[in-house]
């Protein structure tokens, strides 16, 4: 930042002035990535002092639009206007100069520094090369007072709650005189009380004239704070609703669009002799008494928003997390709390984040597949039979069409779809009785997805249970035999396959009862 700019910062201690009228207008924004168009003439408008929510499924184009506004991407066509004057924003620094600030999901604070130090990180107030701590503190206090925030400028960020950290991010934005703050799913890592805290901060900002674009998946938050809502789908802006027009049915229809659902031709039979029962399962604040029964041959889909406790439920069933209450029974017998015992009893888990939790990036396909089957490839003393290991891996590579067909391939160098096949194949080759899948097709291309679904079907045809958590509504509705939707730590609604629609599942996930579903609370 130039000296001049720093000086100008010094003068405007007050933050953004309360202004009226249109703050930002996007007109006909187009954007393509390597030939694939992801934004089609997107229009968007927002005013000073407005909270404008932005919703849409994953891949709808929300992030792309925001990244164009903040100068991360360059638009192919269209025009941006700030204060009704056309502007070009070609990089994030220019965006900041125009008063646009973003608060990302992953916060960018340094945990070891104090609130004040974080706010002025990289733009410290200096005199003769010395940092002016007192002046920085004064100005931080001014901002805190002005927006009525509950923060101590000398507290280390490490000890703050997530909501407070977000306030620090907000302050950081305000310290550079931001008039437009973009929040990208700010509540996904907050508890209910913390979210409420954040909403109060947002209201305070709004009163002072700051405009806020609020990207979210949660309809209830839109009700709570948004003045207007813009919905995007497949790279297009479907429409903008005023506060009065927002209702769940309209919003979900706008988000999903026309639903195509392939009909079932096969009558599925479920096996009553093989059941997994979960009774009143509790885990901290996340699971507040979850109960369900899954039968042999069934693919049970679990829907709900990210952070609603779905992953924790899966980990509790698998034995990787210790529930704080409740019972898990397989055929009436309690399921062990030890992962390895469960694996030997026919359990398997495909975790949510394959890179961080799924595979060993340094090892070969062979080792990554065999690691879950030491009971098969080794004797009781723990001696591995190289030939058995090799045959086991080659069978999996063959059966599940893992490409390239090379057991010595380092998994890190493979495509996402094939990495997922390795992790799925590691379990499928064992013919598990209970297979637990957490977001099984994230980052997997369409062709491989169809294959994965086919493998899942094959497994259930042999009488096994599959429990699948997915945020992909299309996948959830297409693949599951039954869908349970989680909301606020309990199962909220149940959908039989015939009745499940993406819009209905989405509504239930937002805590709205639907006609299609069977209410469980």
């Amino acid at each position: 930042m130039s000296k001049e700019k720093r000086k100008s910062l010094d003068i405007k201690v007050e933050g953004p002035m309360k202004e009226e009228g249109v703050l930002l207008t996007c007109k006909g924004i187009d954007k393509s990535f390597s030939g694939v168009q992801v934004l089609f003439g997107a229009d968007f408008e927002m005013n000073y002092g407005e909270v404008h929510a932005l919703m849409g499924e994953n891949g709808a184009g929300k992030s792309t639009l925001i990244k164009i506004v903040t100068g991360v991407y360059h638009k192919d066509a269209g025009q941006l206007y700030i204060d009704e004057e056309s502007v070009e924003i070609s990089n994030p620094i220019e965006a900041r100069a125009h008063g646009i600030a973003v608060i990302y999901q992953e916060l960018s604070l340094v945990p070891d520094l104090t609130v004040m130090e974080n706010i002025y990180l990289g733009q410290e107030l200096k005199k003769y090369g010395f940092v002016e701590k007192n002046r920085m503190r004064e100005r931080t206090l001014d901002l805190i007072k002005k927006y009525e925030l509950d923060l101590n400028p000398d507290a280390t960020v490490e000890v703050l709650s997530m909501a407070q950290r977000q306030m620090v991010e907000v302050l950081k934005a305000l310290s550079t005189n931001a008039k437009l703050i973009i929040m990208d799913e700010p509540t996904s890592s907050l508890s209910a009380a913390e979210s409420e805290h954040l909403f109060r901060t947002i209201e305070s900002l709004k009163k002072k004239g700051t405009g806020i674009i609020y990207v979210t998946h949660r309809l209830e938050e839109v009700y709570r704070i948004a003045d207007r809502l813009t919905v995007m789908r497949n790279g297009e802006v479907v429409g903008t609703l005023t506060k009065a027009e927002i209702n769940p049915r309209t919003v979900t229809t706008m988000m999903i669009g026309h639903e195509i659902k392939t009909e079932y031709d096969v009558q599925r039979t479920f096996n009553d002799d093989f059941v997994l029962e979960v009774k009143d399962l509790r885990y901290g604040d996340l699971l507040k008494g979850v109960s369900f029964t899954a039968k042999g041959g069934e693919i049970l889909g679990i829907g709900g928003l990210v952070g609603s406790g779905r992953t924790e439920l899966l980990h509790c069933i698998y034995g990787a997390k210790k529930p704080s209450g409740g019972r898990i029974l397989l055929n009436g017998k309690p399921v062990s709390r030890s992962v390895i015992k469960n694996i030997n009893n026919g359990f398997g888990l495909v975790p949510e984040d394959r890179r961080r939790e799924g595979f060993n990036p340094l090892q070969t396909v062979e080792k990554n597949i065999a690691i879950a089957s030491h009971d098969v490839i080794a004797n009781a003393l723990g001696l591995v039979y190289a030939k058995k290991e090799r045959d086991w891996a080659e069978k999996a590579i063959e059966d599940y069409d893992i490409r390239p067909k090379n057991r010595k391939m380092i998994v890190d160098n493979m495509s996402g779809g094939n990495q997922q096949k390795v992790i799925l194949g590691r379990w499928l080759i064992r013919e598990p009785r209970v297979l637990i899948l957490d977001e099984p097709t994230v980052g997997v291309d369409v062709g491989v997805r169809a294959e994965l679904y086919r493998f899942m079907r094959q497994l259930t045809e042999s009488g096994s249970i599959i429990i699948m958590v997915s945020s992909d509504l299309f996948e959830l509705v297409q693949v599951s035999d039954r869908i349970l939707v989680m909301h606020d730590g309990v199962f909220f609604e149940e959908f039989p396959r015939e009745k499940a629609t993406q819009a209905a599942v989405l509504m239930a996930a937002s805590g709205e009862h639907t006609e299609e579903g069977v209410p469980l609370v």
Partner: protein
Amino acid sequence: MKEKILSSLTGVWAFRVLILLIVCVFMGISEPRFLTIGNIVNIISYISVYGIMACGMLFAVLIGGLDLSIGRVAALSGTIACIVARVGGFSATWCLIGIACAIVAGILIGYFHGFLIVKLAIPSFVVTLATSYVIYGAITLLSGGSRVDFVRGSLMDTISNARIVEFTLSSGKPFVIQMNVVIFIVFAVICWYVLSKTTFGRRIYAIGGNTTAAQFVGINVFRNSCAAYAISSGAACIGGLILMSSTSYAAQTLGAGYEGMVLMALIVGGINLAGGKGTISGAIFGALLVGIIANICTLVDFLNLEYLKFFQGLIILIVCIISVILETRSRRGKGRKAKQIAEMQAQDE
């Protein structure tokens, strides 16, 4: 097959052999005594302690840890063995009891490390550095600060100095392979077998590669990590016993600085300090290189003892730099090639 030969020529091992050759030829020219059979046997004997400790510490490094206490653990092991054996006047039985006590103590220290590092999530270098001071103090308390001699000719002598193979070469010089070399080779073979042929070895690599993923396939990270640290400390104990035997006494200063040398050996041997990658052969190669450099520094006359450490460090540093650069380059090259293959095959689909 042709590709196999080609890749082995350009692979990591080709590079390792090359470095060894360069170092040996260089040494051979500058110091003719270097290439005598007697000296080569001497080097192998000399590196046996490094080699054993490197093989042991490899387990700790593979799970993503470090063990900086091995030098002090080695000293402790010699001291314990001698003090216990002294009770029975260094009779064979008491010597065995002493040795057993030393190794058990080492394994317990390893488990203690594992507990602190895994259960309490304290960084491994902090834990092992701290315990190394504690152990140093403990040795002083045990031995009263003075060295503990053992009776010559007792079993303690045998640990390092027993002659297993002995004959006279045609040149009239004796050719001797001592017990320490045999212990080193046996230990290295066992470690190699455990790492490459057993489920325990598989688990060690899995933990080092991705701890969370390892937990999700039912690996008990705590138990296996503890075992890895125990092997590291146990190996340090064996190394310490050999050291004690060859110097004919136990003292708190024996083994000082070995952790640094062993760590360097592992780095030179291509072991990933972040865990999950590395082999016994790499560890032995590293120990060999570090040992050869130390040996030449003692052979060459113009190097006074004061300069020895300086040159030793310098040469190892240079080898480390070259080794790390070449290793990452070859790995990247490999990765790129593999990615190309994957892409080509994906296009085929």
